[in-house]
């Protein structure tokens, strides 16, 4: 029996037992998600049902074996009830969603023309432009946010230029404001919006645009009736890549934002570090995840629907 027939026989056996080569391919991302997402999430979920105590680690064990061999399971649902008790959590979730929504919209408005141009330009120039989009990733994200501090602060680059030109006599306070947070977020996440939009727009068949023009449509009409609807999957993909991580964003508001920038990441930090209440912090994280699943599902459905319509 040679090797090829051996492999064929093994495959047949596996197939008969319900195993497909496809499952092998799916297995890698599946295990990845299992190990790096589901297990950590299970740990967080477990802590969210315990009680904070002064110990190391600072929460009570979920279950204990009593001396006569009885398994005792203690679940504290109070951590979740507590989140509704205080309006802080609801308003923090709400303002995180708001910041994420406006950041996504602003990023989309900036990214779309950029992606459109990159998709339409000559191949030579396209490669250079794509390189420029990716280039900032070679520098640490943290350093780039710090660079914005230098640009935006009271004695920073913008204020120095404005004051030396004489546009303003007093420095404009931009650091520690929501404006700085939006600048930081949109700047950081812009590539994640541009790249999916680009991959979508570059596939657009130019003959469709020609057909539209031949039928007498003006460029604007063509854009709104042909290009924009066909690029919806790219818009959705880009929006998801921006919206979802921004909701949980902690670093940018912490570095650029003021004390009144209320976001769920900061509230979580407070629960974890200032209150030393790991269970409530975990409950905040679990609720955030559940809240995120809803928009993800909606967007995925929309994406599937538009993909189905396009094909």
């Amino acid at each position, binding site marked *: 029996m040679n090797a090829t027939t051996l492999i064929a026989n093994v495959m047949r056996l596996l197939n008969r037992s319900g195993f497909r080569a496809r499952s092998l391919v799916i297995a890698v991302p599946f295990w990845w998600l299992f190990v790096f997402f589901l297990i950590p999430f299970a740990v967080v979920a477990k802590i969210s049902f315990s009680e904070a105590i002064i110990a190391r680690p600072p929460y009570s064990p979920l279950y204990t074996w009593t001396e006569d061999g009885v398994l005792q399971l203690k679940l504290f649902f109070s951590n979740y009830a507590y989140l509704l008790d205080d309006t802080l959590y609801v308003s923090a979730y709400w303002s995180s969603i708001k910041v994420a929504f406006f950041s996504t919209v602003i990023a989309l408005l900036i990214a779309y023309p950029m992606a459109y141009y990159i998709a339409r330009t000559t191949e030579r120039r396209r490669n250079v432009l794509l390189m420029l989009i990716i280039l900032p990733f070679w520098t640490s994200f943290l350093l780039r946010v710090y660079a914005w501090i230098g640009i935006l602060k009271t004695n920073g680059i913008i204020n120095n230029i404005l004051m030396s030109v004489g546009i303003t006599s007093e420095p404009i306070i931009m650091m520690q404001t929501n404006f700085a947070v939006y600048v930081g977020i949109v700047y950081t996440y812009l590539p994640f919006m541009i790249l999916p939009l680009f991959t979508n727009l570059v596939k657009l068949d130019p003959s469709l645009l020609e057909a539209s023009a031949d039928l007498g449509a003006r460029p604007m009409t063509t854009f709104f009736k042909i290009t924009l609807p066909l690029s919806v999957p790219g818009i959705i993909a880009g929006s998801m890549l921006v919206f979802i991580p921004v909701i949980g964003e902690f670093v940018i508001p912490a570095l650029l934002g003021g004390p009144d920038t209320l976001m769920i990441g900061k509230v979580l930090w407070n629960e974890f570090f200032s*209150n030393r209440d790991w269970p409530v912090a975990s409950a905040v994280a679990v609720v955030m995840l559940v809240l995120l699943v809803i928009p993800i599902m909606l967007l995925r459905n929309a994406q599937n629907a538009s993909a189905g319509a396009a094909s």
Partner: protein
Amino acid sequence: MKKILSLAVLAALSTTPVLASGKTLNIYNWSDYIAEDTIKKFEEKTGIKVTYDVYDSNEVLEAKMLAGSSGYDVVVPTADFLQRQIAAGVYAKLDKSKLPNLKNMDSGLMKALGNFDPGNEYAVIYLWGTTGIGYNTKAVAKRLGDNAPTDSWALVFDPANAAKLKDCGISLLDAPTEVIPAAMNYLGLDPRSTKKEDFEKAAALLTKIRPFVRYFHSSQYISDLANGDICVSVGWSGDVFQARDRADEAKKGVEIGYSIPKEGALQWFDTLAIPVDSKHKDEALAFINFVMDAQITADITNYVWYANGNAASLPMVEQDIKDDAGIFPPDEVKAKLWGAKVYKKRTDRVITRLWTKVKTGK
């Protein structure tokens, strides 16, 4: 060019002393909180290779300690945090037979630390300081006149003053258990009170000055004060002195002052302690003993401008530091300082919640 670069790397590598012993020590200390040459001297003396990391808040240190397996061998908790962490079983008892330099320590201050760590079993004093007011002398005088109350909490906590300082920038430490008691002290309440009404009164006062506060942060104010980006900070004494030092070096005409308010201020102790799961306890003890050397501690105080708890080091401390009432306060000022209070969990939550309310209005 590449050749020059690799030569430079080689040169840098060869100047690092070859540490034959293979012993290592991982230290986790506050940022800007040690003399430039302390670690180098320790490595040269003992042959122990040191990895040195920094943090800027007790909360971050505490989270690492409570999670366990931090990998650090020497950490520098503030005394009130130390007390709670001892209760959680975070630290190992010090083997005092390996700390002969304990004899250098100031017995009065070590006794004060005993309020948090009875019998000084787990920690020794590293440095101590106060939480007071750092200010840009010219910027404040320009807005409040030459009689500005720079020696009083009224400078920040009186809304009329704070309003006038808004444009040049006020910062508060992002440390609720230090700022809220200071506000209570200004209101004439006991800063160590644990009554919810007292916290609420302080929070109400802070809410009134909140519109005039630029930010709440525990390390950024050092460079911002020095650069003139802000003009008044409720901050830690030595950090304000570092700002003063940096402002002098920059020569941009910024002058920084520090005052312990006449109403009183928090006196805190930072301590050296060894996590219970440290894998290099002997090296950690060697380091703690090394730091307690009179000359080494004097060098650190001369560099970071914080007072120390080492009586034997005082002759080596520079005269102008010893004479500075903001660093080594005279007895009548000392009498008004208060020690940190360790709160119950429920109280901690009340304070954090009020703090969030002050900061965000929610």
